[in-house]
Every structure is written in structure tokens, then in C-alpha cells.
């Protein structure tokens, strides 16, 4: 996978600027060689005298489409690594019309005018002067058109989706239209100026042929690659699944793991729209409601025989739960009453999530590229909870109900798990509070021990290696189920959560209501200190969400992410300031973090999820919209991060840890004062 300067957030580095200069030089040479250093030639297209503009532009588009779509299909590059202009119909329609009029009047467009001026054309220089003035005019009258950009984060739209065509069909049609247009352009020139350099020429015939072949190639690539590797499906179909007729053959099939279906096989079967697979989730209803594998039916153990009757020995019945024991029992029970088509999902739901849905970027082992592409498709498909399989190609991919997302745990549930050696309760209250009474077995941790000065910026979350040392000394292992307990600041728990996420420790949850919740539920407390042997927690950082000011600046400039400033309002507007400068990041929206929690008596807790959902739906348009959260030093923002990422299921939340402390101190960064973003 190629990383670009944009995806690395390094578009403002010296290397990137140099590469931009080189790209510009090549761009200039291409334009000049095409003859676009002449306004007469450019204008010719509007009078049907010289159609070079259309010929060059369409050839360039077709060439780039073939290269880029191939690269995307093979997974050499991802859309996320590219800066793509959002679609804003009104602005682009009005802009296109004004641009077209300006183009035909002036005889230039910005890029060609640069080349024209470089060729010594006075009219190009005058045009550029006009364009500078026009840009300034836009700035001065921005308030007039500001409404056109009202959608804070503008959506990406692809033409093939807008037209309701598949990507492959659009590509094919576009190339075909291109060839047709080229011949028409030659015919037009032949008619208007009496000669055409390429009409019926050997060159144009060969060129058309090559384009047609390339277009067909692209069609095949774009058509084949989104639907997953067909060989694997064929192989799966061809596997003779032995008919098991007796108890001994049951045992032998279990022995040979013929009663299992691998998660990848299952994912691929469902993804490709297989009708003869019956997926059965045997977990309790509430767990099913929270997340389940798409297309699964929820059937309780006692109802299995009755409800599966229609599928007896037809297709594949695949059973799953969190672990393997229950499905194995269910499968054996079904076998005994004559089902020869019941299978277990290897490693259960957890295995499915881990093997099929875990983002490639979070995996420690290398993933073959075709599997990586499949995983991305599966993620799109299985993490969307609406629509039948064939609709997955739509670009909208809301992420909801992720089962592997840590959320909140009730005191009652925690009480049942607290003695489990795989559970580690971490108490983030002050030491006197902890010493007086804590949850039995809880470890005390001062949240400030996870923060420190990073390269001059105070109060930043420490690097992964240092966090892992703290965890090791508390005997936490990667598979430990960590429960975070707060006192009067929810953000203490969420900041500890950020530390865990930096190590990709996903098995953590926050005690609902904090320690007060525990006490008011009447649960036992203790004053004994716990005891543990040290573990050795891996030190590798898996942090994909912490961003620096450069990334924030780039998103701000491109308006490519929503910036959420979660500080109290007076700090946002600039009325109050404890920092180098007052105000906020231009474009940032204010949503104070403390509005996401409520106090019932003494107990501080998150507001109900539906209530939070309603609020954030109005602020963030889509579940996968990029959002950057920040406050002064990352502490309060960690709470909003948790709300968005884990309680509400927003998938693309970034955390600007250094926050206003750094932004305000760097005087090269822009600041805005007042109520408006």
C-alpha cells in the first residue's frame, strides 16, 4: 500500500514542496507541448476550429483513470491516501458556469495562463492579474456564498454511484465515449478548417485500438476485484462435505475439523450473496441486538430444532456464539436428530471479528494484499447493518454496533467478573479515596503518571513503550479485560482508555457511574492492596488516532475533517484564556465535553446513548466522517473521543492530544476569536 505525502500528513514538508515543484514543471511542460501556451489555440475549442483542448483533456483523464482505478482495484493505494474534492452541487454548478464564461472571454484557464505567461504572452499575464483579483474578491465577498458550504463536512460522491452505474461500467463507457469523441473532434476540424491531422490516420486507428483494449482491461479489473477472489469460492463449493451418518463418523468429522467452517470462508460466502447458507447466532437476544454477523438469525438453543426444521440437510447451517462450547453442543445435538449440514464457526464470533473484520492497519502480522482487499470489503459489508448484500457497493458505509468496541459495564456485571484473574480493575481516583475504600482487587493508578512532556509539549499521553511498562507492573496482559473506574472525572477513565488504545488493547470498559455507581449499587468494597506478578506487555504502538498540529492544519485547510473543540464555551470564544493565545482553531465547532455527562445525586455518568446520538447526528453528518477532537491538553477530548468512537460508533475519530496548549503557542497557526466557527 502506497503512503502519500497527504496520507502521512506531510504535504507541508520540504520534500513534498520539492516534489510539488517537480510535478508542476512536468505539468507545465505537458501543457506547453500540447500547445496550451496559446490562447488562440485554447479558444479554438469554443469555435470548433481547434479541438486540441478536448483531445488532450479526455486522453489525460482516460489515462489517469486507467492507472488510478487499476491501482485502487489492486489495493496499491487506498482512497483514504488521496485528497479528493468533496462534491458540492450548487457551488460547482455556479462555479462551472462563471468559469466557462471567464474562460471563453479571457482565452485562458489558470494552469494554461501560467504556461502562456511563461511563453511571453501579455494577455496571459493580464489574465493572471485578473485571477489574483478574482481570488481576492472571493475572499472579500465570502459571506455571500458561505451558505453553499453549510454542510460542515462535505461528502465525497463518485460519478458512477451518482449515475447508478457500477464502477466498471462507468469506466468502460467513459473510455468508449472518449474514442468516439476523438473521432468526432477530427471530423469537426476536417469540416471547419478543411483539414484534420489525424482523421483516418494510422495513428488514430492504433490509438483507438489501444484505448479500447485498455478500457476493456480496466473493465475486467474493476469488475473482478471488488467481488472477492472467485477461486476461493469455487474451491469452497467444490469441497465435498462428507455426509456423516453415525456417531463414530461424527467423532471422526470432529476430529478432522470437518464440522467447522473457517471465518474467512463464511465471510466470503455471505459476502458473495450465497443463498444456501443459514447462519445462526445462539447468543442471548440482547447480545444479538448489539451486534451480529450480517444475515444471521438469532435462535436460542431450546428453539433450534424447531426453527431450523426447514433447513434440515439443505445448504449449510452455521452456528456461532462468543466461544465454541455452546455451538459445539448445539451442533452435536442437531447431528443426533439427523442434521448432517450443521457446522460451527471456527473461533466463534470473536474469531470472526478478529480474523475478518479487524482493520488491516491494526494487525501485527503481515497480510497478503488480496486478503487485505477482501478484509476491507468485508468490513464495509459486515459493519453496515442495512441493505441486502448486493447493495454494499454504495459509498455510504455507516459503522454501527461493533461488538468488539469497549463500552460501559454495570456494577452488577462487574461484580460477577471481579474475581476473574483475567479481569483487572484500575481505579483512577485520588490515593486517599482509594485507600479508604475500593473495589476488591482494584489497582490504583494516578492518571498523571500516563502523561508527560513530549518534545516540549506538556501533558501529552506517553509513548506506547512507557504505557506498556505501567501495564506490565500491574500484571496486565494483552488479553486482560480491563475495567476503568473514575471518581468525579469521567475523563480520567477515558484518558486511561486512550492509553490502552495506543497499545490496541481493545478489551477495556468503563464502570458505569464510576466508583459512586459501584457504591450506590450496594456492592462490596475493600481496603486491601492487590497482589500480582509483573507481566511483559508488548511495547509496540498501534496508535492510528493521535494527530499532530500539521494534520489538523491540513484538515483545516482542506476542510476535510470536522474539528470539535470540546473546551468550555468561554475558552472557545476567547473570553477566557489560560494559554498563549485565546480563541479557537478556525472552522472548529464547540461542543463542551461536560454536556455529554449528567449528575444524578452524587453520581456522574454518561447521558443516555439515544440522547447523545440525537445531539451528534446534528453535528456529524455520517458515521465515517473524519472528526478531530481536541481540548486544552487531550484530557477532556478523550471523553468526547470515547463517546463518539465507542458509545456512538463513529469510525473515524482523531485525537489532537497536544491541543490548544500547542496550537495557541505556535504563532504560525491561525486562530479565530468569537462565537462562529
Amino acid at each position, binding site marked *: 500500500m502506497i503512503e*502519500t*505525502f*497527504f496520507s502521512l500528513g506531510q504535504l507541508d514538508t520540504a520534500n*513534498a*514542496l520539492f516534489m*510539488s*515543484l517537480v*510535478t508542476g514543471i*512536468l*505539468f*507545465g*511542460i*505537458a501543457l*506547453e507541448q500540447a500547445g496550451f501556451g*496559446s490562447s488562440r489555440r485554447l479558444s479554438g475549442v*469554443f469555435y470548433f476550429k481547434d479541438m486540441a483542448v478536448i483531445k*488532450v483533456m*479526455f486522453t*489525460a483523464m482516460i*489515462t489517469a483513470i486507467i*492507472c488510478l482505478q487499476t491501482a485502487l482495484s489492486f489495493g496499491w*493505494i487506498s482512497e483514504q491516501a*488521496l485528497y479528493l*474534492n468533496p462534491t*458540492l*452541487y450548487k457551488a*460547482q*454548478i455556479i*462555479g*462551472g458556469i462563471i*468559469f*466557462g464564461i471567464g474562460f*471563453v*472571454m*479571457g482565452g485562458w*484557464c*489558470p*494552469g*494554461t495562463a*501560467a504556461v502562456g505567461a*511563461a511563453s511571453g*504572452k501579455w*494577455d496571459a499575464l*493580464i489574465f493572471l492579474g*485578473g485571477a489574483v*483579483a478574482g*481570488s*481576492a474578491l*472571493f*475572499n472579500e465577498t465570502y459571506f455571500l456564498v*458561505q451558505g453553499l458550504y453549510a454542510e460542515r463536512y462535505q461528502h465525497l460522491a463518485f460519478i458512477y454511484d*451518482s449515475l447508478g452505474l457500477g464502477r466498471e461500467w462507468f469506466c468502460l463507457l467513459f473510455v468508449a465515449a472518449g474514442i468516439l469523441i*476523438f473521432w468526432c473532434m477530427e471530423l469537426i476540424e476536417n469540416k471547419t478548417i478543411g483539414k484534420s491531422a489525424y482523421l483516418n490516420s494510422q495513428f488514430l486507428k492504433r*490509438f483507438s485500438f489501444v484505448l479500447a483494449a485498455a478500457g476493456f482491461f480496466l473493465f475486467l479489473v474493476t469488475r473482478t476485484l471488488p467481488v472477492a477472489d472467485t477461486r476461493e469460492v469455487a474451491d469452497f463449493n467444490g469441497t465435498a462435505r462428507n455426509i456423516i451418518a453415525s456417531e463414530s463418523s461424527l467423532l471422526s468429522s470432529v476430529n478432522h475439523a470437518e464440522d467447522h467452517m473457517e471465518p474467512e470462508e463464511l465471510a466470503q460466502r455471505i459476502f458473495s450473496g450465497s443463498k444456501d447458507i443459514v447462519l445462526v447466532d445462539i447468543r442471548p437476544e440482547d447480545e444479538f441486538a448489539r451486534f451480529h454477523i450480517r444475515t444471521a438469525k438469532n435462535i436460542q438453543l431450546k428453539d433450534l430444532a424447531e426453527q431450523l426444521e426447514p433447513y434440515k440437510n439443505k445448504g449449510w447451517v452455521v452456528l456461532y456464539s462468543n466461544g465454541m462450547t455452546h455451538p459445539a453442543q448445539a451442533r452435536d445435538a442437531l447431528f443426533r436428530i439427523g442434521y448432517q449440514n450443521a457446522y460451527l464457526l471456527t473461533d466463534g464470533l470473536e474469531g470472526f471479528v478478529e480474523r475478518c473484520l479487524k482493520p488491516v492497519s491494526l494487525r501485527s502480522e503481515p497480510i497478503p494484499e488480496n486478503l487485505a482487499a477482501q478484509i476491507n470489503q468485508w468490513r464495509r459489508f459486515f459493519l453496515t447493518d442495512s441493505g441486502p448484500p448486493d447493495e454494499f457497493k454504495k459509498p455510504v458505509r455507516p459503522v454501527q454496533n461493533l461488538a468488539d468496541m469497549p463500552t460501559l459495564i454495570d456494577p452488577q456485571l462487574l461484580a460477577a467478573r471481579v474475581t476473574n484473574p483475567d479481569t483487572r480493575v484500575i481505579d483512577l481516583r485520588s490515593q486517599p479515596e482509594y485507600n479508604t475504600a475500593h473495589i476488591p482487587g482494584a489497582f490504583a493508578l494516578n492518571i498523571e503518571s500516563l502523561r508527560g512532556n513530549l518534545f516540549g509539549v506538556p501533558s501529552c499521553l506517553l509513548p506506547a513503550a512507557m504505557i506498556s511498562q505501567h501495564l506490565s507492573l500491574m500484571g496486565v496482559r494483552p488479553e486482560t479485560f480491563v475495567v476503568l473506574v473514575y471518581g468525579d472525572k469521567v475523563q480520567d477513565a477515558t484518558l486511561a482508555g486512550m492509553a490502552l488504545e495506543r497499545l490496541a488493547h481493545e478489551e477495556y470498559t468503563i464502570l458505569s457511574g464510576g466508583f459512586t455507581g459501584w457504591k450506590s449499587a450496594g456492592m462490596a468494597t475493600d481496603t486491601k492492596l492487590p497482589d500480582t506478578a509483573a507481566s511483559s506487555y508488548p511495547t509496540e504502538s498501534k496508535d492510528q488516532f493521535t494527530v499532530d498540529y500539521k494534520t489538523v*492544519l491540513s484538515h483545516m*485547510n482542506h476542510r476535510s475533517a470536522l474539528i470539535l473543540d470540546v473546551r468550555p464555551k468561554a475558552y472557545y470564544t476567547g473570553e477566557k484564556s489560560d494559554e498563549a493565545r485565546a480563541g479557537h482553531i*478556525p472552522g472548529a465547532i464547540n461542543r463542551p465535553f461536560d454536556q455529554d455527562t449528567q449528575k444524578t445525586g452524587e453520581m456522574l455518568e454518561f447521558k443516555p446513548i439515544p440522547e447523545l446520538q440525537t445531539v451528534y447526528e446534528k453535528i456529524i453528518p455520517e458515521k465515517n466522517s473524519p472528526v478531530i477532537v481536541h481540548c486544552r491538553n487531550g484530557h477532556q477530548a478523550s471523553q468526547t473521543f470515547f463517546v463518539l468512537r465507542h458509545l456512538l460508533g463513529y469510525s473515524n475519530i482523531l485525537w489532537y492530544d497536544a491541543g490548544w496548549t500547542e496550537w495557541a503557542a505556535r504563532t*504560525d*497557526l*491561525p486562530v479565530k476569536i468569537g462565537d462562529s466557527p
Partner: protein
Amino acid sequence: MKSISKPYMNPYLAGIFLGLVLTGSYLILGAGLGASSGIARVAAGLMSWIMPAHTENSIYFGAWGKNPLAYYLVFMFAGTFLGGLISAFLSGRFGFEMEKGKKSPTRKRVLLALIGGLLVGYASRLAQGCTSGQALSGGAMLLTGSFVFLVCLFAAGYAGAYFVRRQWDD
């Protein structure tokens, strides 16, 4: 100089060349080609030089910070000029000239180029890109907005062509 100038490149080959440059730009920089942003940044640079406080506080240019010229598209624009210069010299096409129809008065051409530039400069900001950054680069990534922009651009161009045709009268 006209007499020794080389003919233009085959437009189809020039198109392939341009398409490959665009592909390279996407794969290396992570962004397509652009020209109007460079111009707008120059405008912002000039304005923050003349009236720094006003520019810094303006909503649009203000977002670009105190040094709007430190931006990749400014460098790309400078490169485009350089590339044009190199190519024009090598092909013997460099020469100071006001391009217009022989019968058309210079004043008219100057006025049209100036107003055309003004409209294009404004419209490029409005549409968040010009023929390079929006139509070509966005179109190559199959973005809906870019195709909409391209269609409107040509429709308006052809609709307006008749009224300004005299500037090319020979």
C-alpha cells in the same frame, strides 16, 4: 522566433503525458494537479502584505495562516510556470506577444483577458478548483462534483463564445 518554432506535440500523446503526470501526482503527493489555488495563495500573500490584520481576520484567507505561500500548490504553480518556460524555449515558441485577432483592438483584448481572469479567479474559489484541480484531477478520480463542474464549464463556454468571438477576428 515564430519561424523556427517546432510544431505542437500530438495532442493524444500530450494527453497521455499529462495523464501520467496526474497519476504520479496522486500516487506521490496524494493530491491531484492544481493551479488556481496557487493563484489564490498569491492573492492572499499580497493581501496579507498590504493589510495583514484584515487578511488574518477574514474568514477565507484567514484560514491559511500568516504565510499562505508555504503551500504545496504554490510550489506546483511555480513549477508549472518554470515547465512552461523550459518547454517554450526548447521548442522555440517563446516570444513577447499579445495574442488576439489582427482586426481586434488591443484594448478590447486586454479588457476581456482581465475580466475573464477575474471571473475565473472567483469561480475557481467558488467551485474549489479550476480546470486542473477540479475538472481534470477530480474527473480522473471519478468525482461527481468534478463532472458537474466540467459540464457546466463547457456549456457556459459555448453559450458565451458567440459574444466574444470578435476578439479573434483576423
